[in-house]
């Protein structure tokens, strides 16, 4: 094959869809401004003793830490369950059990999250654990479904050529299928994280703590400021995590896709 490259292909940019600096900075700046406005508003008010108890830095940070723990633990559990499960359910031997398995996981998402949390609290008593279980049940489906879709959309000819060259099934999975499924799995993870940050708020109803406590306390004490602080912090946190997950999505997408 001596005739060289008359059929030269298109030369594409090294990576499509890279954000501009302004694009990178927009969200963090917006969130910082929001927090600053919130802080200034709280500072400018004369706080009642009930508000002081809730809105001091130590207490709010405690709520934030609990919230992050709920989100992080449940998301890690979801990853640990849903990704291996998605891999198993896309293997040829599991073809028969795939539809019933999906139905089971669908139940978790179909039940309203508040109902699930309360039910679990009745079964397991109140606290951190039932809240985590509820969050896991609620977000396992998007990650599982995306893992399966991600693995299934890998071109069959790519897998066949890999097998045909003598790659083992395991190395086809780890070196070909999973890398090619990463963008879609990451999109599922991002969805799960965002849902978890929001739904973790409900943990407050069963004594699991978190920023939801501020919202509940505000209602109970009829102190609107406390509720507003809780709600704004949850929103800022959700947007921040979505932003970070978006960056991770871009960075982890294999080159060449």
């Amino acid at each position: 094959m001596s005739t060289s490259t008359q059929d030269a292909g298109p030369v594409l940019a090294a990576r499509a869809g890279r954000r501009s600096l302004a694009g990178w900075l927009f969200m963090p700046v917006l969130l910082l401004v929001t927090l600053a406005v919130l802080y200034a508003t709280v500072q400018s008010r004369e706080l009642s003793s009930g508000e002081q108890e809730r809105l001091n830095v130590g207490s709010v940070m405690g709520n934030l830490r609990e919230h992050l723990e709920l989100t992080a633990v449940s998301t890690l559990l979801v990853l640990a369950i849903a990704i291996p499960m998605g891999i198993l359910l896309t293997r040829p031997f599991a073809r028969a059990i795939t539809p019933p398995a999906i139905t089971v996981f669908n139940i978790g998402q179909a039940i309203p999250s508040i109902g699930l949390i309360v039910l679990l609290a009745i079964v397991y008593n109140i606290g951190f654990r039932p809240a985590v279980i509820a969050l896991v049940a609620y977000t396992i489906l998007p990650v599982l479904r995306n893992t399966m879709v991600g693995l299934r959309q890998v071109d069959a000819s790519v897998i066949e050529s890999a097998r045909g060259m003598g790659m083992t099934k395991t190395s086809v999975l780890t070196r070909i299928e999973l890398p090619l499924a990463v963008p879609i799995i990451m999109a599922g993870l991002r969805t799960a994280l965002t849902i978890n940050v929001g739904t973790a708020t409900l943990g407050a109803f069963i004594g699991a703590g978190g920023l939801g406590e501020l919202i509940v306390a505000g209602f109970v004490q009829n102190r609107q400021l406390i509720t507003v602080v809780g709600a704004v912090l949850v929103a800022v946190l959700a947007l921040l995590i979505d932003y970070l997950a978006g960056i991770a999505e871009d960075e982890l997408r294999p080159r060449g896709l």
Partner: protein
Amino acid sequence: MTDGSSAKIRLEGLSKRFPGQREQAVDDLSMDIPEGEIVIFVGPSGCGKTTTMKLINRIIEPTSGRIFLDGEDVTKVNSDQLRRRMGYVIQQIGLFPHQTIADNIATVPRLLGWDKQRISARVDELLETVGMDPGDYRKRYPKELSGGQRQRVGVARAMSADPDVMLMDEPFGAIDPITRDRLQNEFLRVQERIKKTIVFVTHDIDEAIKMGDRIAILREQSHIAQFDTPERILVEPADDYVSDFIGRGASLKRLSLSRVRDVELHEWPTVAESASADEVRHTLEGSDKSAVLVLDDQQRPVQWVNADHLRRASHGSRVGEIGLPADAVVQPNATLSDTLNEMLTARYSCAIVVDSDRAYQGIVDIDTINESVRGMRQAEQDRLRGETVPDGQGVGS
């Protein structure tokens, strides 16, 4: 079939039945694939040719039967290890989109644990073999290549660990006809040097005739209708199925395998340009042809002249000025197929053969072509009857 001892790959009673299907996809196939040849599996869609090829590297595990590679029974050995000994190219090519061209080509050498320098040198060597500049292409991704380039990389990747055997499933199938023709020619040139044993699947009989040292024409369930050289398949189709599959163009295809210089030229009455009308008339009467060919003083054909032309010509005009122009002129290196084509448009149903100085040599008529087809058929039959069957009669050799 060749002597079994020289078979690179031997298939013995190979069958495959897919779960849930009553009919076997491949039924009791036995064949020897000789070393260093391109063996083509050709047949209509659904005849099991691709399945058969995939049984060889056990991408599809046979239901029964045995596969031998270099005399070693590989039916039960580790299939991953087995596949690393065979190059594999499929129509869709299946390059890894998230890996660079260099990484794609390095796949099998890495599996075999080659060191980095050796892999890198091999990648450069292969890219050069397939006509792509390593400096330019190593770091690119598959999506940055054209279809023809991807196909080249696919072939390079299959050759990466220098396997003796390559399996190719319609490797040029998804490429436009012009690029395909070029890639086929390039591939044949490379094969002349590397002499791999190649199993090549196609549904296109023309591609089979062009690429194959040997062609296996398969019917349903991968039953072999005929397994032979392209020449013999064209001249001596085993049965109606084979002749149907080759199509009505079989003799025409055969005619493009031989040239004018291979056939005996016929004589035609000729006269010089300076000859008189009486001389022409005399020549005409002395022959069974209806016209004479007029040659100039350098023996180049000029005109056809028949009795009618002579009658109508005004008295005293030279023969070079009457009659019809001498068309349908071919040179000795023209194929019989081209010659036949010329002949069909000619006035006297024959083609005038000239040498490279355009001097008249003789003529080829439809009888010559008929005789030559018959002769080729006879020669093949004689060879079939002979004790020793010459090996590896390639196309266009």
